[in-house]
């Protein structure tokens, strides 16, 4: 049975079990939309270079309840670190029982709990905001299965001292698995938080993740968000991170992709209040047949916002990359400053990148810049290093390490930065200097 067929069966099963209410009506509307639009094909301009039909025609199991993993499995994915909370998704379902969150700055609930609690208004206000921007079937499909997701509230005036880690574990020991994690994070006034999302696959079969995480950041709050992908070639991923900057606030988002199968990352930064500031960084360093597609939207709705976007790619083997960066400056958004840059190095003749900035500006007093490059390593720099006795392989590794360093510097959590640095150096086959 193809994934598209399985989805029909599973939707009815889930919906019957999960009942009605707030989430029920979101699910119903979304499922209708999904059925209308279907899985996006390459005829859709937004999906021109990223093909999903090969995946959706395959057989994938869809689990709507969680299998609790062993301690050993958990330890396998955890970064040894001090944390404010460690939250586990297993096969796309948030598993509260194995998560830890004893921090009085935080409220952690499953989404269906939250929808029925005193925090209902947060869910009403902020859940599914991404659907305004993501009109394709993948976003709708995730919404159609919204039930056992995660709700996190960072309370007003609280500074969460250590990062929150979200681990996504997919068990593909027995079969191909399709998972749909869903999260909502609300960062209240004057609060500060760091959030990390990590993905881990256990097993040799294929996994296909269709994730949506929505984050609402309120007045004077500060968000750091990190998404790190380092699964194997059998792990496919479509994910949307939707950051809604409700009040004047600061956000800093970093997406790092080191390995995987077919990967599509959407990130939306919606600057809804004047004087908002947002930073988007990305590094993709892939080889083999990995396909990585980063699509971003920065939407300036109000005056005096600042955004800076900087993505870098190192492409080896037969890998393919896509960068598509949209910047909207709406009529009201005078004095917008929006910067965007995408730089790629191809280290194999068979690797390729399609990079495309897209600016739509409806205000007149704005400063926007964008630029993209696709090239090889700088021959002059390479020669300089070799002329000092450094072998070609090591010289290349040093230059690539330096290329990646710009983005790694944006990782402000030491344990995560060290982990990434080690992974990258292993990949480059150089000793850590």
């Amino acid at each position, binding site marked *: 049975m193809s994934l598209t067929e399985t989805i029909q069966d599973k939707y009815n099963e889930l919906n019957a079990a999960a009942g009605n209410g707030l989430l029920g009506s979101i699910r119903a509307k979304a499922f209708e939309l999904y059925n209308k639009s279907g899985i996006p094909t390459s005829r859709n301009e937004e999906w021109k270079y990223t093909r999903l039909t090969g995946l959706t025609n395959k057989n994938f199991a869809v689990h709507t309840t969680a299998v609790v993993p062993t301690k050993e499995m958990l330890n396998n994915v955890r970064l040894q670190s001090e944390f404010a909370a460690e939250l586990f998704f297993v096969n796309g379902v948030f598993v509260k029982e194995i998560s830890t969150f004893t921090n009085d700055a935080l409220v952690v609930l499953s989404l269906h709990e939250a929808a029925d609690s005193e925090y209902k208004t947060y869910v009403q206000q902020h859940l599914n905001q991404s659907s305004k921007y993501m009109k394709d079937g993948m976003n709708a499909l995730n919404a159609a299965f919204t039930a056992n997701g995660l709700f996190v509230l960072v309370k007003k005036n609280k500074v969460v001292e250590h990062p929150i880690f979200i681990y996504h574990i997919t068990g593909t020991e027995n079969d191909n698995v399709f998972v749909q994690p869903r999260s909502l994070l609300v960062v209240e006034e004057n609060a500060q938080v760091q959030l990390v999302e990590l993905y881990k696959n256990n097993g040799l079969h294929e996994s296909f993740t269709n994730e949506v995480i929505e984050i609402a950041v309120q007045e004077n709050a500060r968000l750091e968000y990190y998404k790190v992908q380092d699964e194997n070639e059998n792990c496919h991923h479509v994910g949307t991170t939707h950051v809604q900057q409700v009040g004047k606030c600061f956000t800093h988002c970093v997406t790092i992709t080191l390995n995987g199968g077919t990967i599509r990352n959407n990130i939306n930064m919606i600057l809804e209040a004047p004087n908002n500031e947002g930073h988007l960084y990305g590094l993709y360093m892939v080889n083999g047949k990995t396909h990585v597609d980063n699509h971003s939207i920065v939407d300036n709705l109000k005056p005096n916002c600042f955004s800076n976007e900087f993505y870098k790619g190192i492409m080896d083997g037969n890998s393919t990359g896509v960068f598509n960066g949209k910047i909207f400056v709406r009529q009201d958004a005078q004095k917008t400053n929006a910067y965007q840059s995408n730089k790629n190095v191809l280290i194999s003749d068979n690797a390729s990148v399609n990079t495309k900035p897209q600016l739509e500006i409806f205000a007149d007093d704005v400063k926007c810049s964008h630029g993209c490059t696709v090239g090889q390593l*700088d*021959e*002059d*720099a390479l*020669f*300089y*290093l*070799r*002329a*000092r*006795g*450094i*072998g*070609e392989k*090591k*010289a290349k590794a*040093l*230059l690539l*390490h*330096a*290329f990646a*360093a*710009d983005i790694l510097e944006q990782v402000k959590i030491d344990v995560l930065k060290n982990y990434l640095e080690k992974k990258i150096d292993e990949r480059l086959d150089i000793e850590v*200097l």
Partner: protein
Amino acid sequence: MLTINNLHAQIEDKKILNGIDLQINAGEVHAIMGPNGSGKSTLASVLAGRSDYEVTDGTVEFDGVDLLEMSPEERAREGLFLAFQYPIEIPGVSTTNFIKTAVNEARKHRGQDALDAVSFLKLMKERMKLVKIDQSLLSRSLNEGFSGGEKKRNEIFQMAMLEPKLAILDETDSGLDIDALRIVADGVNALRSKDNATLVITHYQRLLDYIVPDFVHVLYKGRIVKSGGKELALELEEKGYDFIKQTIAEGV
């Protein structure tokens, strides 16, 4: 130490070196002078192993082995050093780590153990004094944002760290004020020994007051058209390159 025989080189069908003969022995300092565009940097690049230039004829022996067969890194490890006319800025690569890697690659090649952190620092401190280079410069990214003079001094510092058999200095003097020039020259002189040799490429005679050459060669249109002692540099300074051009024209 270095024997160049009838060396011809070109880039994309453009002939730049048209038969160079040059013999440099251990303990000697040679100077190559010549007008802009005569092929001085090309000669230096070919010797260092830059593959953009195609050697179409001739041979180069370095300590009895065929230099042209070696990769740039092998040449460096064998003791050939080029101080670049235009040192490259490499953001994200720390100067200190770069030099440490380079020193240890050469040591490995000679069958020596890598220097530990303490010995490396000690050597660095000592050589820093020699070229009066500041620690703060070395903790920055390689040449990034360095002034012209700082870049040149960093080249000589690298040379001091690597202790090459043959150092080729490509217009190390250009862009240096007189104090910096003196420091660079003092450094080069301090490293001179009977076992190593230096090839100084320069456009002006000035540097040769401080690094006194045993031989001076004039390069013109890719050939050495005149060789002599250090007085040849003074003659060139006095009469200018036009005098060489004239001599050549008359000879034809």
